[in-house]
């Protein structure tokens, strides 16, 4: 007889049930508490700034609507408004716009990189991975819970940012299709945040150290942004027209912002490619004339040239958003799947 024959505690031999996933919610909250408090706090602080400044910008714009465009006819007050709008509001908004580009990667990297790497770095994985809930499930739960939270926060923040930028869309100083605005609005902004998070988590698991993972996340994210920018022009939403079909490069009141012209080329009589330098000379001549009597198109037509443009109208904004958010989502999910695979197979 040995210790085995001593009476065991009741209830020990019940068949194992899978541990409920919602328990992981508490675990994730407690382990990631710092992140889950810091991110919304920082976003809230920035949001306050955006609201305050955005209200001012909206107000200034509304006031400007009552002023004539022609500088000669402006009153002093109007002139001052224009000056404020152009030299204070716009530069500040522009700066904010640039900084907002960093938001997805900062949120994603600081939430994603330590998610798994910190436990690996400080040895607590030896505790977490030997508990009853399998390590893959823990990882999936963390990725899902934090991912969804970040997407919701980023989407809300992106909407606020879009509101903030509206006056400048209306004045057509930027377009919704330009890189900065496109990536910071709609559903692409939360998608980039999710991708940054997924990159952070994956690299954290791969490199097993928080600081190197953070640095690498910034680099990889930058590559993804550049790739997205290069890829964007290839989306199947482009339009090709010639100046024979009159088009407006500018938007309509319901679809503000100007078009994104991807490329321009010229053909000569009979549709053959034109001599670029000859066309160039013609255009230069036209532009050196301060008071043209005919339009550019007419001038070209007189010489037998046709201008062709490959471009994206502002009305194609949402299709583009869906395409871009779509492949970003696939990328994020693939990275997260890769992270879980590493958790499962990469031995401690």
């Amino acid at each position, binding site marked *: 007889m040995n210790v085995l024959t001593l009476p065991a505690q009741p209830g020990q031999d019940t068949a*194992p049930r899978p*541990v409920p996933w919602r328990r992981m919610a508490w675990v994730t909250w407690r382990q990631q508490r710092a992140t889950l408090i810091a991110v919304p706090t920082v976003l809230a602080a920035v949001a306050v700034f955006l609201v305050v400044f955005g209200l001012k910008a909206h107000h200034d714009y509304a006031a400007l609507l009552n002023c004539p465009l022609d500088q000669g006819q402006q009153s002093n007050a109007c002139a001052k408004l224009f000056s404020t709008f152009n030299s204070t509001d716009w530069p500040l908004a522009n700066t904010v716009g640039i900084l907002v580009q960093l938001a997805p990667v900062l949120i994603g990297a600081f939430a994603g990189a330590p998610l798994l790497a910190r436990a690996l770095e400080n040895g607590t994985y*030896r*505790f977490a991975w030997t508990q*009853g*809930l399998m390590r893959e499930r*823990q990882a999936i739960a963390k990725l899902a819970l934090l991912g969804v939270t970040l997407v919701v926060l980023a989407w809300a923040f992106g909407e606020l940012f879009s509101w903030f930028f509206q006056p400048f869309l209306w004045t057509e100083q930027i377009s919704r299709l330009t890189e900065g605005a496109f990536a910071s609005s709609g559903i692409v902004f939360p998608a980039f945040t999710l991708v940054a998070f997924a990159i952070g988590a994956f690299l954290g698991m791969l490199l097993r150290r928080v600081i190197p993972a953070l640095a690498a996340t910034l680099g990889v994210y930058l590559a993804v942004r550049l790739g997205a920018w290069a890829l964007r022009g290839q989306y199947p939403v482009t339009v090709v027209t010639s100046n024979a079909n009159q088009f407006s490069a500018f938007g309509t009141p319901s679809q503000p912002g100007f078009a994104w012209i991807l490329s321009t080329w010229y053909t000569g009589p009979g549709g053959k490619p034109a001599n670029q330098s000859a066309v160039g000379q013609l255009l230069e001549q036209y532009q050196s004339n301060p008071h043209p009597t005919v339009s550019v198109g007419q001038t070209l037509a007189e010489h037998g040239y046709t201008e062709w443009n490959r471009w994206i109208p502002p009305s194609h904004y949402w299709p583009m958003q869906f395409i871009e958010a779509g492949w970003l989502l696939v990328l994020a999910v693939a990275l997260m799947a890769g992270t879980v695979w590493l958790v499962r197979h990469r031995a401690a």
Partner: protein
Amino acid sequence: MNVIETSELGKRYGKSWALRDCTLTVPAGHLAALVGPNGAGKSTLMNMTAGLTAATAGIATVLGGHPAGSPAALNGVAFVAQDAPVYRNLSAGDMLHLTRNLNQRFDTPFARARLADLGIPLNKKAGKLSGGQQSQLALTLALARRPRLLILDEPLAALDPLARQDFLAAVMTAMADDGVSVLLSSHQVAELERVADFLIVLSRARLQMAGEVDDLLAGHRLLTGPTAEADEYADRLTVVQTRRGDAQTHLLVRTSETAGPVPPGWESHQVSLEEVVMAYLRSPGVGEPAPLTRVQRPQPTEATR
């Protein structure tokens, strides 16, 4: 039931093997002491048994055949790694809650009562507790899971003598109360002599010896006699270690049925656990071919009269 069973278990990191060709069977209801010098492969063996590390070669199963690291294994095995890792920024109360959420079975009243007995406050951050308290916290969390197998990697190394005794007393009590089996590693053999009834000796990434302590001690003798006759008898007996003086030699031998009686003029003494372990550690390779390394059940035939 065999609480741990390995078959040619091995782990390689890069080019070097941390553990190799390890085949052993540990029956349930024992405290198995895992001893060996640094780098012998103790932590590697424990990590693989706990499901933390995947094997490069061979297999490890626990609790009657469940693969190490499988859900059934994770459920029934509690592991306390070296230095008793706890989340430094979480309080003991948080750690209780965390462990409860990560396991299907958790005895919260037991854990709370135990921490209260030990005087470990529930609201202090774990990182601010003393080393002994952290170890006791980790042990409490492990025991509260009501495991069938408890794996402790060098739990006593950083503890003062009082803390060491408290820790071991807690483990022994859990064995008596719940019938839990224990695998415990340590540098020091002497302090394990009172608590271990199964012994696993590793050295240089290989298994040197595995078996019940009673069998081990019964199966070895220290023979002392004249050096002049030592070589003659050494050939006939399975000698684990020789200590030779000019006139007198000590032979630590493994006894068996075929060995015959003690040679005339020689003395036979019992050996202590520490002596046997040290002998095997100093003479690697002696342990391998013998039946004692693969003890499944106590073998009455091993004993001498």
